[in-house]
């Protein structure tokens, strides 16, 4: 039985992951052409590389269909309830840093904190007849955060991409999105609330707690983790 390692299938996250493993003597790569989603592993025995969308890795880990996976803590916490019971965090990998934050138009000079956002949400609802809309793809994390902080009278609207543009397009009044430098937010005339940091995330290697392995698989897992120096 081989150890199945799930890695994001494209972009910078894939390249950085390959580099991270490479620096530890485990060569990961795509098999065949650029378009083929099969992977190859060299430098360690009994490990199979599975290339997946980063967003699907938490679910595959929780279901035990892969044994190890690289994904962001943001995605794990958004997609899995009680993630701690299902996944073990092995190591943070030092790249893919991003903060999930709440941002509002820069022109809202009267809004600096969640306290302000809550007051403005009440006034906005009275003035416009609907609740202040916050665009995000992190519904659970944002809702839990706002509930804990006692913000009311808002509505979440789903945005799976180009979230920073939703305010200008008037499909939302504020956003809750991932940012690394804040540049995209600034370019879109948005500012982060002073106490609007929901979560710090980075690429992280997780192990599925429930994925079954036979003796050979366990030996391969132990050898891999030794090589990665995370055992």
């Amino acid at each position, binding site marked *: 039985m081989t150890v199945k390692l799930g890695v994001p299938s494209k972009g910078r996250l894939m390249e950085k992951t390959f580099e991270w493993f490479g620096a530890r003597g485990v060569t990961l790569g795509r098999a065949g052409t650029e378009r083929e989603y099969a992977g190859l592993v060299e430098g360690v025995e009994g490990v199979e590389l599975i290339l997946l969308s980063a967003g699907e890795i938490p679910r595959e880990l929780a279901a035990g269909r892969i044994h190890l996976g690289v994904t962001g803590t943001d995605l794990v916490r958004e997609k899995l309830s009680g993630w701690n019971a299902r996944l073990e965090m092995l190591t943070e990998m030092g790249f893919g840093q991003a903060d999930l934050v709440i941002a509002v138009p820069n022109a809202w000079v009267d809004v600096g904190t969640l306290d302000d956002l809550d007051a*403005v949400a009440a006034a906005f609802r009275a003035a416009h007849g609907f*609740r202040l809309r916050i665009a995000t793809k992190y519904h659970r994390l944002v809702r839990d955060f706002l509930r804990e902080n*006692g913000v009311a009278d808002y509505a979440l609207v789903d945005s799976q991409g180009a979230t920073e543009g939703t305010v200008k397009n008037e499909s939302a009044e504020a956003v809750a999105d991932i940012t690394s430098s804040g540049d995209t937010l600034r370019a879109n005339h948005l500012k982060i609330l002073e106490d609007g940091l929901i979560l710090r995330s980075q690429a992280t290697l997780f192990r599925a707690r429930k994925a079954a392995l036979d003796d050979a698989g366990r030996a391969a897992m132990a050898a891999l983790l030794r090589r990665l120096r995370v055992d």
Partner: protein
Amino acid sequence: MIPRAAITAEAARLRGLFEQAGAAPVETAILQPAATLLDLYGEDIRARTYTATDALRGEQMLRPDFTVPVVQMHMENGAEPARYTYSGEVFRRQDDDAERANEYIQVGYEVFQRTDPAQADAEVFALMHRILAPLGLRAATGDIGILTAAVAGLRTTERRKAALLRHIWRPRRFRALIERFAGRAPVPPSRAALLDAADPMADAGPLIGLRSRAEIAARIEVLREDAAAPPISETEVDLIDAILDVRETSVHALGRLRDIAVDMPAILRAVDLLGDRLDALAGRGIDAESLPFEAAYGRTQMEYYDGFVFGFTAEARPDLPPVASGGRYDALTRRLGQGREIPAVGGVIRPGLVLKLEAGT
């Protein structure tokens, strides 16, 4: 596991008892329009309910309780006074705790009556108390109306009172607002800079989104007024805290609240109502003297209760949720009544939990 058929039979028995008490049986749809529930509870309701979607009606929710549809039904075509009973499944989304039921049967009893709220409160509580007596449950009671009256009576601006009343059911935000309005919390630097700025919009950059320049200006004006308003006094903050701390037998709680009312006459009417309710309960054979009372009870529950609140729990089974709960929800009828309102109080029993306790499992 209690067989489903047994729970259904117990639900029918309970509903029969409520019918004997004078309630008319009613039924409601399982799928409820999401817009109504979202309007009432905000986005938080999504964490507690299952949402279903189709292209024609948009979002609908599997009913999380019966109160909202029963109130709507009564406001549309109900005669007064009215008593209703119902039984059926409610659905609660559970993302974190696999032990909690996501579907269970509730049997309810609701009273819509303009006169004598103390008697109506006592009627609902005493009925549940009598039905549940064999289980030896612990009753808890409270009254959100006392805290509400205290806030409404504060010597401060109407805006501050409105902000506090909006967050009565969110203790943490309520506390933060009290601290700020009492001048105990430091002013955030961004707020101080804004209030000092000659032209607050100088560095605003382009205005994007639906919230207008006029709305921003209006809020700055509100913040300036608030900064100029004197803080809520230490005395009044202490009195609010004293009310929130009341947690004893009803007769002692009543005495304590009467003492507080000497310094805070705004709560007198609400405290008198508590006294009347205890008399009404005693008249129905409840030992009101020893009945526990907590002024903060029910504050973190569903935010439609705005007066008397109660719950019955099994003391030996802290793992189980309340077997029965309920309260007064006058404000809900106002919000759903489109201009009309009627005082209302009600409660529900969970037959599945009744059987579980009887079976000792």
